Every structure is written in structure tokens, then in C-alpha cells.
């Protein structure tokens, strides 16, 4: 059985949370819920507004390609340590794609307000988050 300490280890390996102190990650895990999804079950629905993101702690899921420009695009597979809907942690944006569980998935549901509060309490975390976002921006522009 997986417990909070294992979750903290997984969070540490995720870029978005890697910069946070262990104590903060423990609080993040403590304030999050763990959800189980059966194979085929929907984890996130495109267009839905949520105030949480999932971090997969067990199993794999597919991010379905956008049906509009689905010209041969293959579904993107995500697994342990990947974040689903991380934009929801940072701003109020609808989910960009459907996400479905491939096998038995367990994921940590992280609430935006908890994450935001923890990040804002620690300048280093904030700086790290901005850096990660910046890198992604450069990446997507180039």
C-alpha cells in the first residue's frame, strides 16, 4: 500500500514541484486527495474548468488528441510523476484535452489554492515555477 511518504517522493521527481522543500511537499500531499480510476475511466474532460490538477502516482493514462486537428496525431501517454492539467494550478483555464485512464490509475488531486499558498510562502519556489514556465514558453515558441 502506498502512503504519503511515497507520494512525496513522486512529487519530488516532478519538475513543477522539485524545487519545493520536503516539508512543503508533505503539506501538499497532506492537503491533496488520492483518487483511483479504473481502466477507460475519464480523468479530465476537455473544456472543463477545474481548480485542481492530478499527479499520477501509479498507472498510465492517455491524453486524447484534439479532434479538430487530429490528422494522424497519436495519443500522448503519461505515467507516474506526470501532471494532468497543471495549468489549472496556475490560472483559471479550461482543460485542454480529454484524459483517460489506460490501466488502474491512482493520482493525487492537488488543489490550486493549497499549491498557490505553499508556493507564495517560499520565494525560491516562486522563482523556480517562473523559471519552469519561462523555459516552456521558450520551448513552445521555438
Amino acid at each position, binding site marked *: *500500500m*502506498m*502512503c*504519503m*511518504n511515497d*507520494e512525496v517522493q513522486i512529487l519530488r521527481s516532478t519538475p513543477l514541484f522539485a524545487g519545493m522543500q520536503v*516539508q512543503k511537499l*508533505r*503539506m501538499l*500531499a*497532506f*492537503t491533496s*486527495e*488520492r*483518487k*483511483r*480510476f*479504473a481502466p477507460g*475511466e*475519464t*480523468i479530465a474532460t476537455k*473544456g*472543463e*474548468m477545474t481548480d485542481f490538477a492530478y499527479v499520477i502516482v501509479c498507472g498510465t493514462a492517455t491524453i486524447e488528441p484534439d479532434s479538430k486537428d487530429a490528422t494522424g496525431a497519436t495519443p500522448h501517454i503519461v505515467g507516474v510523476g506526470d501532471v494532468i492539467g497543471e495549468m489549472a494550478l496556475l490560472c*483559471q483555464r*479550461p482543460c485542454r484535452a480529454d484524459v483517460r*485512464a489506460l490501466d488502474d*490509475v491512482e493520482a493525487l488531486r492537488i488543489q490550486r*489554492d*493549497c499549491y498557490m*499558498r505553499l508556493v507564495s510562502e517560499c520565494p525560491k519556489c516562486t522563482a523556480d515555477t517562473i523559471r519552469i514556465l519561462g523555459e516552456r514558453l521558450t520551448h513552445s515558441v521555438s
Partner: protein
Amino acid sequence: MEPLLSRYIWTNTKRQQVWILLVVALSMVPYYLAFDLPKQIVNGPIQGDGFDGTGTTQVFGDITLPIFGGIQIFPGIPLERVPMLVALSMTFLGLVIVNGLFKFYINTYKGRLGERLLRRIRFGLVDRILRFPPSRFKSIKPGEISSMVKDEVEPLGGFTGDAFVQPALLGGQALTALLFIVVQNVWLGTLTFAVVAIQLAVIPRMRRRLIVLGRERQLTARQLAGRVSDIVGGIDTIHSHDTTNFERADIVARLSRIFRIRYDIYRWKFLVKFLNNFLAQLTPFLFYAVGGYLTITGSLDLGQLVAVIGAYKELPGPLKELIDWDLTRQDVQVKYEQVREQFESLGLIDPLLHAPDPRPDAPLGKPLSVRRLSLVDDGGAQVLDQVTLKFEMAEKVALLDANGSASGALAETLGRIVWPTSGTIMAGDVDLQHLPEALVGRRISYVGPEAYFFAGTLQDNLLYGMKNAPQSPALYTGQEAIDRAWETVEAGLSGNPAFDLNDLWINEESILEHTGEHDMFGAVMSILRLVHLSDDVLDLALHTHLDDRQRETVADSIVALREEVRAELTGRGKGGMVAHFEEGSYNSGATVGENLLFGQLLASGDALRQIVRSDYFRAIMSSDTLGERMFEMGRTIAGITVDLFRDMPADDPFFDRMTLMQPEEIPDYTALLKRLEGRDFGGAATADRIAMMRLSFFYNERWFRFGILDDDLMAQIVRTREKFFDDLPEGLSELIEVYTEGRYLQSATLMENMLFGKVDHGRGNADLMVRAIVGEVLARHGDLCREVLMIGLQYDLGPGGRRLQAVQRQKLNVARTLIRSSDFYVFNQPLKGVDERTLHLIHQDSTRFLSNREQAPGIIAVVADDTVLTDFDRVVRFENGRVLRDGNSETDAHINDSL
């Protein structure tokens, strides 16, 4: 408002004041008579003046008016010495009673007068708040102003009764006593008068200085407190600059100043006291010395001297009270001025505009137009610049900003949330500002992004916008009718309007007509459906703990539904999403405590403590290893929790997410952990053992995932459960509501009762899926479904609607606008938190609903971007506060694309 409190009191209560003054004057007659009697009793029957021989009689009760040389009304009765004594004494007793009754009447009357004025002031102040122009609210603090209405005006009411009566009464009493002394002996009278004059002139003046000093004391003490917190806050700066001694000097200087003020206060206080006492005692000295001399020389008889001294006893009391009265007067005048300052405002709304409209169906002039409308915000920015626009009925207009915030500002001025700096809003050819709010408020419905809800139920708040004027009066019978009549009369006497909260304020007919439904329930639900809130109503109902009355109506039907819900869940393959209460197994959706007790605690708070402390529980726990294991579990829980929360301030929002401990318990558990270091179950004190076992009661492995509850332990808990119920004492069993098939659990929510179990929140979308299935099952039972939804409508929103989520609040805000029947609807981005798809659906549904009305209303909506423009007929684009383009939506889209 009147600048002077005394004038305010006089204007509003002059008739009563005159009446009470008359009564006071009248009361002086028996008061004076009661002074004179003791002298007559002592001189007459007791000392025997005029009763020289046996059988001599004196006339008793001769009443002669001292006008026209004396008109005799009653010749009196001749009486002998002893009957005379009895008659005079009885008269004295009678006068005492009459005087007491007068006092009683005067005091009650004054009290009532004061309460009425207090009521008048309070109502007047709140009335003013309701009539303040919107801009006034930027400069007032709600807390300050509400405490003014509540506390600060209170002494004003207390003073009202005394404002004129007290000086008249006390002055009258003092004057009567003085006059009496003068009549007895001019010299003694003059002496007393002189001393009293000194007292009245000097003492209040000296006291005034005390008030000044008191204020100074308050101020310096406040500054000292500020300085101390300054030192604490800046301690690092102080140390790094080595200025501790400078700070010491500063504190010494302040303390010295405070000391000086306080010492001054003491000196003055006791000096005033001394002087007052001295002056009060000086007069008796004069009476003894001068009066005694006069008696010995024979120019004053002993009875007169006794009467003078008796009369003088009545003097210091009224004098002291008069001085106190003057002090109170100054005090309340200052308070009144402060209140007045806060409640004075330019541009108060004319009360006539607020009067309930006698013609609720009066039409609003069409079209709605704004002319050369300008608005400058607090920062001095020109938000609207000479905007002129026209809005017709049945027109769907989108307001869109290319740059700036003109569209929102225009919507706000149309909704009268802000008043324009210049320019007018016209309905037909009438300025909106001159139209009564009853008409404008009903004919133009505005809804903005900020939703405020008043404490009350969901339905109350939804219908809030319909409570414009009483529709039909509440009917009263018997005692209630008498009470209501009294209330109406009293309201009138205090200048309050005679509104009755119990009247029917909602025009139900117009709602039914507006929605096309047959009953209020249908109307309410149809509106909630428009804003996609009807599912939430079911949700709220399902999470409610029913009260006694609600249980009576639905409990049995809910219990009867359990089988069907269970079958449906299993049939759809969702059986695993609910953990049912089963006697022989551990329920992973429930806490350790709920599993051990196989039930829930009935009375919250102390019940758990009672159970855990009981001998019975402790015996069970120590009979096998469970006690020890729960103790260790508690220790781990405490360890992890304390570790996480140790350094958090008690008001940290993270505590809201923690159900294991209260913030204030953290230090206790820290100490407890320390105490238990290196000790096991056997070595721990009983109290500590109990504390740890109690903590483990709240634990649920699914929620907290501390990894301390394995299958073996669960099985042991289930085994102990059986043992626990074997021989449970009655005192404990009545604290626990055991899960029983076929019975409604009052400690559980409606949902848990329908499921007879708990939703497994660990399963991805279990909440939603189970809810949907339960909803479907309920829908098959129309009447029950209706009852359940009604329970949802009765959901209490809490202060400010805080028990709803932000999105739900926004939807409800729109719903309470849609339920009103208006000519124009102004939507100022009320659904900002709602996702795009839902927003679009809500918009389409509500537009269709409004356009299908017999007289289609005008819809004016502020939109955030281009994507929704196809829903509108016309688009107005703003740039820097000016209208950039105004045209129908197709050409607008065309132009915009070509740009």
C-alpha cells in the same frame, strides 16, 4: 440632521416633554406638602401647641385657596390632640404614597420616551445608509458605522428622557427645598442659596477638566501601546543599531507623561470630591450655629429649625444629580456630533424615490438612452467620455471594450451602482434619477460580477429581488392582532414606517406569469435550471442533515428507497463506489471510530470524550491488543500532524483542511508526544493513553494515507466492535446512533441515508457518478424528489452566501435577476468563473427564456471577447471611454475580420 442633540430631542418629542414637565410640576405640590407636615406634627399634637386643655380641638384639613382674599373650599374638621396626630400622620403616609406614584409614573414615561427616541434615531441612521449615494460607501467602514447604530447611540436614548425633565425635576426639587428654607427663615435661606450657587458654579467647571484629562489619558495610553508593538516589530533594527537605551528613554518619557496625567486625575478627582462634600456639609454647620442661635434667642422656633434641616437633607441629592446631568449632556452631545458627522452626506437619495410605488405596473418610458454620459473614477481616469447611446426593447446588445473599461462602467451606471459624473440616463423622456426606485429597480434588472447574499435559505435569496413591496398583508387573530396593532402604533410614535415583515412581500402571481409555471416550486426550479443550478440544489439537499420536521416528511420514503438505489448502482457496475454499512466488515469510507462503534455519535462535542473515558471502553480496549495498537496509531498520527502544523499560525487556512486536531490542540499534542517518548502503552499515564486512542478515532486511511491501518488491524476493529456491543451500558449507548437497516440515521446526511453507506471518495469521479444515479432513482419518485429538492431550496447559505461555492454564487446571482420580470436586463459579466461551454449554454437558455416573453425585454450584456457575439443583434465597441463602433453584429464581425 440637527446639529444640537437637545434641539433634535425637542423637535421630535416636544409634546411629550411638555406633558411630562406638567406632571413634574404637579408632583411638586404633594412634594412640598410633605415637607411642611413634619413641622405641623411635631409642633402640634406632639408638643401640644394649641392643645392647651383637654377637649381643645384644632381644625384639620382646611383648604383655602389664596386668591381673592381666600376662598374656602373645605372648612375642615375640628379634631382633638390624639386624633389630630393620627390624621396628620395618615396624611403624611398618603403623601409618601402619592409622591412615590408620581415618581413611578414619571420614570416609566421618561424611559418610554427615551426608548422611542432611540428607536427613531436608529431607524433614521439605517434609513440614511439606505439612502446614501453609492460614492459615499467608499469612505465608510462598515464595522464602524454598524457599531455606531448599535452602541454609540444607546446613551442618547437614555439621555432623552432626562433631557428636559431631569433639570426641571431636580431644579424644581432643589428650588422647592430652597424656597421652603427661605420661607422659614430668610437668613438661613440666603446662606443656603449662596453655598448652593458656589457649588453649582464651581463643581461642573472642575469636573470638565477631568473629562479633558481622561481623554488625554486614553490617547497617551494608546500611543504607548503603539510604541511597544513598534519596539517588538523593530527589535532587529534596535539591536543592530544599539539603540536599546534610546528606546528605554522614550518609554520612560512616555510613562512619566502618563503618570503625570493619571496623578493629576487623582488629585482633581479627590479635590472635587472634597470640595463638594465640604460645601454640602458647610450648610448644616451654618444651620446648627446660626439656626441654633436664632432658636435660643427665640426668633426661630424649634419645629422650624427641624423642618429647615429636614428640607436641607433633600438639597444635596438633587444638586449632585444636576451636576451629573450636565456632565452627561456634554458627553452625549459630543457622541451625537460624531454620529452626525458620519451620517451626514451630500446627495442623499430623496425619500420619495424610495416610497413603495402605489402603481407597481406603471410602465417605464422607452427607449432607454444615455446622453453625453461621462464618468470619472476615483483615480481621476476618464472611464466614460461623452457616451450617447439608445437601447430598445427586444434588442440584444453586446458591449465590448477594445481598450479600457467603459462597457462595465456603462453597465454599472445603467444598474445605478455608480452615478455618472455628468450626462443623463433617460427612460423615454424622463431622467432616471427622478424616477422612483420602485419603478426603475423593477423595470431594469442589473447583475454584476460581485454577488452578495444575505443570510437565509437558497430560496429566500433567489426571491430576494421580488421583495419590493408588501403584496398582501399578513392576517392576525386574537392576541397576535392586538400585538400587531400595538407594534404599528409604536412604530408610528417613533417615526418608523409601519411595514410588516410577515406580510407577503413576493408577488407570486407575477413570477408565475413570468415563468409560465403553475406553482412557485416549478417557477423557482425552472429559473434554477436556466442557470444550471438545479443539479446543485439536489446536491445541497443530499448533503444536508435533516432536522426533525424534515425527517418527519421524508425519512421513511428515503429508507424505503435504499434497496432500489443499491440495485441500480450494482446494475450499472458502480456498486464498488459505495461502501455500505455492513455489520461484519470494515467500512473504508468511514473513520476508525465510526467503524469501531458501527455508528455515529449523536450529540457532537463531548460524546466521544465520554465514551473514551468510560470504564467500560477502557476495559474492552485493554482486554486485547487493540488498545495498544490504537494508542500507537494515535502516536503516529499526532507525530505527523504536529510535524506538519507545528509552525503554522492558528488562523492558517490549512487548518480548515485538517479534521484531526484543532489549532489550539497542537501544543498539547506536542507536549504529549514528548511525555510519551520512550514509553509504550503500558508505561503511559491513563489520561495520555486515552488522548492517543481518541485521536485514532478520527483516522481514515483513504483520506490521510499515513500507512498505519492495515487489513489485520481493520479485522481486529471489526472483531472488537462485536464485543463492544455485548454489554454496552445505557449511558453510552444513547450517545451512539448505530447503523441499522430500515432506520433513518439522523447523524448522517440524506445521501448517506439513501445509500446506507458512504461514497468512496477515493474512486475518481465517484461523487458525480453516484450523485447522478441517486438523482435518477429519485426522479422516478416524483413526490419524494420534489420534497428532496425543497429541502435543497431551504439550504442555509450562511453569512454572505459563504456556504456556496463561488461559481454557485454567481449562478444564483443571475438566477435572482432572471426571476424578475423587467423591461431591460443588464448583465455585467456575472458569470466570470463559469467555464465557456456552460456559460454559452446559460446565455442561450436565458436569452431564449427572456425573448419568449410576450413583451421581449432589452438585453444589454458586457462581453469579454468576440467569441459570443453571434448571440447578439447589435455590438457596441468602446475605446478609451468612447464609442468606437455601434452596429449590428454581422457587419461588426465583417468589419472586425477585415481589420
